[in-house]
């Protein structure tokens, strides 16, 4: 039915266009409705340039005559060659809307162009708003009162439009139309009426039964629309197929996903703030277009004028009250506490053993080692800080722990911890070091200076190692300092990273500088060997955890690949240690070493292959990770709960964040805590940052954090969120609920 209708209008359009060309009589036929004077087609026959390439324009009138004082509608009808498009009033990322420069008789006025609902036109990474095939741009003309029956009225104008396929051509046409003045009621022109009827149907409707508002929190607008019941019936209760077209060009990112969703009977659309926006507007204006039928016509298009509510800043750790000094202090203590984190402790224990074994060699050596270790830690933190800054400058949305969002990094860490565990268990005895093949100095007795240089290098390197293994952990105090630092100028960010490194290095460096303390350490003995072996098991547990994270990121096949890589790593170590040591004859040793390296490389290849076979981001999302089975956080879900005034608790977590896992298992998932949330009527949501998710990075930035865990308690109403510490206890959570959220009646 609709298709037939469009075919008819297409034929009518072609006929009218033909009429424009054919009518050459000096006196136009009144009532014919469409008369072109020097339009583009007329000029095309001359030798001049084609002024309207790939398109044609006609000025059409809906009525056959003009009545005195009664306004009427004309239309600029643009027809485009197949595949070509022209633009809406906001053309999107590029392009230009059509315009008409009117020349109308004195007393006449021409209104604004009334724009039919546009379509999305994709040229990744860019998106335009516009029309294909044809469009009728309606304009209301208001005549003056004193028109005389029998006169004629000539409306003229120059139309400018841009016609594009990917390349664009500016087009223009001089158009005119002459209509008789008649006191009689103006009749519809049967030739153009169907076209105008279709054109009107495609205009977005202004409907006061739709209410909307937009909540802005950098960098998103959460556009909430309450449509009348009729639309809900039309669109259905499934994921709505709608798109919001902003009227102004610098308000939203046109190409960004809008993720429309129903929240009850409210339609929630997420709009990304335009990178070219200068200020937040009072109102987000635009057109909401619902799903289209087979002919491409929208089922419904409605004007939206959503007042913007700018959300307040969080109450905790605002920039003003958290100066550089406090940030440095927090970072320093955060660094100190990092030493106690489960991922760092075994590695640092090794370093302390080093002291114990060499406590008799004089304090100078220890001090040098300590200094080298400290420099190693500091340098690593500087590198990390610089990488983080560089990535942020390049526009990446990353925060602390960002490395662990990459499966390859997680896999390599698993292999590293596995190797460390093997070393602690003594599998690398015989002095074979995978990285030292070919170095003949092993067989020599190192000279004293060389020895000193080696220990210094090693201390530096173990500082680097300690930092690398520390990256999965966020110590208390650290989150606040890092979150603050990443919002500051680069120099201050680096200062905070320096403080963090200094804090992490200080216990060890302090120990190395205090000969008295070193002497008080127990003397080496069998106990040390036993403790070393025992410390291998926390490391192996870390491998299990990393493998679990890797599995969440890459799926069961990826996990099998990682386990295969660990197997090969073990094989390489065994071959290297069994036959590559000094007990073997030189040729056999070489063969063993080459084999070990080959197997090691094979392990790496298996690992890389496993890491890059990541499943579809959506299908195996990390939402199942962690101990709490809470509903997944999303910006609309959170905004909706907050705007309804209900209290909300958000667990910002990640599979690779150990302290997150501990907090969830030991605190959040306990029955008493769950019951307390329920009794206080608090909705709980989990924002899982296991994979990179710019929305979560954005939400963290709003809370002035850049790492997980973050526990945000929104007490309800317009009250700003309360952030709980990154190491939770039941009492902390229960007390926060008692303090901030009244019990449900």
């Amino acid at each position, binding site marked *: 039915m609709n298709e037939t209708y469009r075919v008819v209008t297409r034929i009518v359009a072609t006929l009218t266009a033909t009429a424009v060309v054919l009518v050459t009589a000096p006196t136009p036929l009144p009532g014919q409705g469409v008369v072109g004077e020097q339009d583009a087609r007329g000029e095309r026959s001359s030798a001049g340039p084609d002024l309207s390439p790939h398109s044609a324009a006609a000025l059409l009138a809906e009525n056959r005559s003009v009545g005195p004082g009664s306004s009427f509608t004309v239309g600029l009808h643009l027809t485009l060659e197949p595949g070509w498009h022209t633009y809406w009033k906001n053309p999107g*990322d*590029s*392009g*230009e809307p059509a315009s008409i420069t009117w020349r109308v008789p004195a007393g006449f006025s021409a209104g604004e162009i009334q724009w039919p609902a546009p379509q999305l036109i994709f*040229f*990744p*990474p*860019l998106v335009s708003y516009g029309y294909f095939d044809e469009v009728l741009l309606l304009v209301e003309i208001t005549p003056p009162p004193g028109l005389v029956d029998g006169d004629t009225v000539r409306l003229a104008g120059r139309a*400018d439009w841009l016609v*594009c396929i*990917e*390349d*664009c*051509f500016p087009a223009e046409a001089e158009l005119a139309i002459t209509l008789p003045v008649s006191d009689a009621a103006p009749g519809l022109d049967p030739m153009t009426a169907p076209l105008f009827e279709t054109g009107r149907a495609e205009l977005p409707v202004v409907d006061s039964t739709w209410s909307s508002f937009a909540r802005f929190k950098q*960098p998103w607008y959460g556009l909430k629309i309450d449509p009348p019941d009729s639309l809900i019936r039309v669109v259905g209760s499934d994921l709505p197929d709608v798109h919001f077209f902003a009227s102004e*060009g610098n308000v939203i990112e046109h190409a960004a996903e809008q993720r429309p969703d129903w929240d009850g009977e409210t339609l929630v659309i997420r709009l*990304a703030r335009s*990178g*070219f926006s*200068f200020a937040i507007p009072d109102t987000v204006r635009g057109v909401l277009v619902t799903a289209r039928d087979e002919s491409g016509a929208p089922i419904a298009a409605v004007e939206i004028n959503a007042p913007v509510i700018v959300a307040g800043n969080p109450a905790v750790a605002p920039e003003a009250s958290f100066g550089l000094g406090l940030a440095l202090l927090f970072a320093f203590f955060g660094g100190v506490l990092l030493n106690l984190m489960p991922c760092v402790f075994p590695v640092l224990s*090794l370093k302390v053993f*080093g002291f114990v074994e060499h406590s008799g060699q004089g304090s100078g050596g220890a001090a040098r080692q300590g200094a080298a270790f400290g420099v190693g830690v500091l340098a*690593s933190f500087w590198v990390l800080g610089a*990488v983080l800054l560089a990535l942020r*400058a390049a*526009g*990446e*949305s*990353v925060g602390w722990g960002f*490395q662990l*969002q*990459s499966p*390859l*990094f997680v896999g*390599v*860490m698993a292999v*590293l911890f596995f*190797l*460390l565990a093997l*070393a602690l268990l003594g599998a*690398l005895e015989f*002095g074979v*070091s*995978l*990285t*030292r093949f070919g170095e003949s100095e092993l067989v020599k007795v190192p000279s004293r200076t060389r020895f000193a240089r*080696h*220990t210094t*290098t*090693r201390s*530096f*390197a*173990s500082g*680097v*190692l300690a930092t*690398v293994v520390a990256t999965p952990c966020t110590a208390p105090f650290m989150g606040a300092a890092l979150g603050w630092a990443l919002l500051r100028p*680069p120099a201050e960010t680096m200062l905070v990273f320096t403080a963090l490194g200094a804090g992490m290095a200080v216990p060890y460096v302090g120990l190395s500088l205090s000969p008295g303390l070193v002497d008080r350490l127990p003397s080496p003995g069998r106990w040390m060997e036993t403790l070393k072996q025992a410390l291998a098991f926390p490391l192996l547990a870390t491998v299990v955890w990393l493998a679990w994270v890797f599995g969440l990121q890459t799926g069961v096949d990826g996990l099998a690949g990682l386990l295969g890589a660990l197997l090969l790593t073990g094989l390489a170590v065994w071959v290297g240690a069994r036959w590559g040591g000094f007990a073997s004859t030189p040729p056999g040793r070489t063969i063993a070493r080459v084999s070990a390296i080959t197997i090691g490389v094979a392990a790496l290849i298996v690992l890389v292959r496993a890491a890059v076979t990541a499943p579809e981001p959506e299908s195996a999302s990390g939402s199942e990770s962690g101990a709490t089975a809470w509903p997944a956080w999303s910006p609309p879900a959170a905004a909706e709960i907050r705007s309804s005034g209900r209290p909300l608790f958000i667990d910002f977590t990640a599979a690779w964040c150990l302290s997150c896992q501990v907090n969830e298992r030991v605190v959040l998932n306990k029955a008493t805590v769950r019951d307390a949330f329920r009794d206080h009527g608090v909705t709980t949501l989990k924002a899982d940052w296991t994979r*990179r998710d*710019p929305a979560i*990075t954005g939400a963290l930035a709003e809370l002035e954090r850049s790492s997980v865990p973050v526990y945000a308690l929104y007490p309800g109403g317009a009250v700003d969120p309360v952030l709980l510490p990154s190491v939770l206890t039941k009492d902390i959570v229960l007390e926060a609920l008692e303090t901030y959220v009244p019990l449900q009646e």
Partner: protein
Amino acid sequence: MHRSRIRSHATIAAALAAVSLLVARDARAQAPGPTIGQPAPAFTLPDTYGAEHSLADYRGEWVVLEWLNYGCPYVKKHYDSQNMQNLQAEYAGRGVKWLAIVSSAPGKQGYYEPDAMNEINEEKGQNALAVLLDPTGRVGRMYKAQTTPQMVVIDPAGTLLYNGAIDDRPSSRPTSLEGAHNYLSAALDEAMAGRPVSVPTTKPYGCSVKYPS
């Protein structure tokens, strides 16, 4: 023995740090775009004579980036009227390093082989310091270049000060230049006089940048 062990671990750790760098770079999220007041994204591109230009080379200088596509009617407006060449010459005289960047993909509008580009530059009287070729569109995307023309201002400290339209007349008609307010020169003049840029971003207008499909 244990010493060599620790050292070997440390070497692995150093290698890991390098891997993490590569990995983090590799795993790109949807970039929210360059940020006004933040360091301008670093890049290195060849010019039409094969010489490499890094943004870092121009530390200490005022830099203008101009996205260029000679086939685009909006660019033609500014070149046929000599508006762009005059701006380039005026600011070159004040020490500004003006780099035109072509992010058109091979086979698309505005892409020319270096020799052909040099001929057109000659013919148009191109006054930019260099015309840089970005056929992959990588640098264009880094700067969120949407249209030609699109203009960027970077201060001597490497901070992004302006990103957006050249002026307030989003039209390809030459007559639209009359009375236009030039955002680029306003931003440059303010910044070079030590004042904050009052309009640090505007929606750019013109043809879409012809990125690879």
